[in-house]
């Protein structure tokens, strides 16, 4: 009954609202403000053991099976970009979140929030590429929902996908499992997705077309886990990039990390675009990359498995986990010095002088 609802008027918002009376774009940027929002506002409200795992997806035990369950919303603008569109991005993203739990992705749901006036042909192209992406990654889209909002109340199309997968016996992936002595592996060149989106959104013309790396990583992850079931951590460095993801893992595991600039693959065109725009590739979003933290003795075997897969040809060992300083990621630069690599702060901003 309505009158039994608790009166929340006397409660106060746990975020420092003196500074943030309203939600800012950076609260959704995947950096520090997003984390503040999660830790101070969402976690205390929804607190439960599964959520407290703080992984890309929840890991649930149902009977004898261990399931991974994940959800993700997609608001990318523009809807179509070099290398993909909001549809395959939404399928691949949720497939990847499940794969990062060590799960075999099985079933997806999809909710479409459509703005009145969207071209039917655009909708078909998005849906068709969702189907192609689902087939390619071996998942089935089994349930969905459609809503249409007034013109001007949405931005073309927003997509939400959720997914379920099964975690095979013997696999135990979690950010907290990173240990000193582990090696950090990456499957290929970074920052492609963010720069591809930036280049179309800002109308930047480069000599070559910069394509998003959006891809389903479950096949690659299967190969990696087959080579070494004892992999400690898998994470896909999406918003906030490699830098923010490694910081999250270092914070959760209470370990330090050292990465080597010269070992981190970045394509020439992407580096050039980053130099021009004042971006650090370490903070630019990826949609087809996986960071793996692997026991030292397994590292070469996993690397070989990655290189044998089409999505890991340019895989590299980019660093190692250390005991100290806990929670800090350090970059050994190409010129022989070192610096802290912090989590993304605010939105990435261009240089002004």
């Amino acid at each position, binding site marked *: 009954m309505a009158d039994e609802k608790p009166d929340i008027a006397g409660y106060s918002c746990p975020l420092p609202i003196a500074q943030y009376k309203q939600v800012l774009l950076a609260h959704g940027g995947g950096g520090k403000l997003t984390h503040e929002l999660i830790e101070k506002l969402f976690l205390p409200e929804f607190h439960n053991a599964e959520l407290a795992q703080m992984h890309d997806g929840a890991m649930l035990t149902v009977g004898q099976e261990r399931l991974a369950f994940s959800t993700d919303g997609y608001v990318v603008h523009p809807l179509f970009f070099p290398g993909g569109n909001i549809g395959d991005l939404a399928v691949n993203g949720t497939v990847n979140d499940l794969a990062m739990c060590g799960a075999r992705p099985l079933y997806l749901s999809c909710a479409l929030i459509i703005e009145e006036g969207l071209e039917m042909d655009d909708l078909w192209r998005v849906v068709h590429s969702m189907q192609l992406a689902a087939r390619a990654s071996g998942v089935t889209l089994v349930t969905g929902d459609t809503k249409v909002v007034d013109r001007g109340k949405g931005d073309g199309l927003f997509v939400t996908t959720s997914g379920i997968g099964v975690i095979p016996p013997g696999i135990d992936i979690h950010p907290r499992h990173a240990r000193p002595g582990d090696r950090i592996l990456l499957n290929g060149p970074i920052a492609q997705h963010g720069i591809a989106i930036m280049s179309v959104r800002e109308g930047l013309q480069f000599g070559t077309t910069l394509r998003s790396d959006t891809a389903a990583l479950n096949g690659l992850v299967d190969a990696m886990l087959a080579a070494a079931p004892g992999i400690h951590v898998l994470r896909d460095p999406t918003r906030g990039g490699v830098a923010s993801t490694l910081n999250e893992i270092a914070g959760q595991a209470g370990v330090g990390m050292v990465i080597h600039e010269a070992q981190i693959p970045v394509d020439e065109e992407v580096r050039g675009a980053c130099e021009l725009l004042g971006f650090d590739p370490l903070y630019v979003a990826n949609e087809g990359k996986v960071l793996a933290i692997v026991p030292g003795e397994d590292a070469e075997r996993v690397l070989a498995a990655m290189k044998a897969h089409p999505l890991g040809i340019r895989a590299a060992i980019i660093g190692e986990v250390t005991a100290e300083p806990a929670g800090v990621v350090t970059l050994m630069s190409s010129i*022989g010095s070192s610096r802290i690599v912090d989590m993304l702060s605010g939105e990435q901003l261009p240089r002004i*002088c």
Partner: protein
Amino acid sequence: MRYVDEYRNRDIVQRLVQAIRVQTTRPWTIMEICGGQTHAIVKHGLDALLPAELTLVHGPGCPVCVTPLAMIDKAVAIASLPDVIFTSFGDMLRVPGSERDLLSVKAAGGNIRIVYSPLDAVALARQNPDKQVVFFAVGFETTAPANAMAVLQAERESLKNFFVLSAHVLVPPAIEAILSSPANRVQGFLAAGHVCSVMGYEEYLPLAERFHTPIVVTGFEPVDILQGIQMVVQQLEHGSSKVENAYARVVRREGNPAARKTIAQVFEVIDRQWRGIGTIPGSGYALQPAYKRFDADEHFAVQHIATHEPEICIAGSVLQGLRKPHECAAFGSQCTPEHPLGAPMVSSEGACAAYFRYSRIRHG
């Protein structure tokens, strides 16, 4: 990548570091003027490679940091008006005003756009004739030519709805103010290469002579910066005080005459207030009388708002090279990039943000 990798070459870096070590026999204090150089120094850990005798202090060359609070409050007031599209480079949006920053105005419904060029703002004015488009012209001499061009373009198109809020600042008067201060401890300068690419370096000659201080025009990559430091140290050790150019691939003595001409056509030199420092004579640009109709300051006539600076913030001392960011009681605790008290913690070129981001363990 050509034109970048060779200036981040490990062997050349090590050779230059060795040369500086051999050369240095006494303690010296050198200031890099430009915030871009500050970030490069801290990001690449160059300060840690230098001999202990050398102290690098960070200059006021972060236009975001020195934009006075009253100007930010004015920007916030204009951006909050209905029918205004307020355009700015990204960094300015997060700088705290007395009450709030521009990002909060945006979240509250203000029409604020990040642009990459002032010409994008002109295009917005063209596309939105029923709106008033304001461009926040922040920057040193480097960004002035493009901003001047935007005004000329708006004039050519007879746009009545394009305005510039000018907060331009100039480097040489700032150097003069620092050297004239009784508290000054700076013995040599790295001049900002990009500013000199526009203005040349003739205006530094009388400064070097009058204050017996070497000034070396310096670039932004590790090799550039170390070369600039090496040339300053060499001069200091030999007791000379010349202006030298370590960035000859970009900077010519006379700068870029076409750009200078455009600046002179559109802007006039005025006294300018610098946040944390005070008013420096002849240190800013305002629109020439012939272009006053594009002046947002005049058009919107925002009344001065009472400003309020956090008392604990030592941004002024940091910007003058008198203190280092980590010497501030609020550094990393009350003041972080997410919750900045002062502009140097916000800007991608601010000294406090550089220290926090790249080296807070070393300095913490």
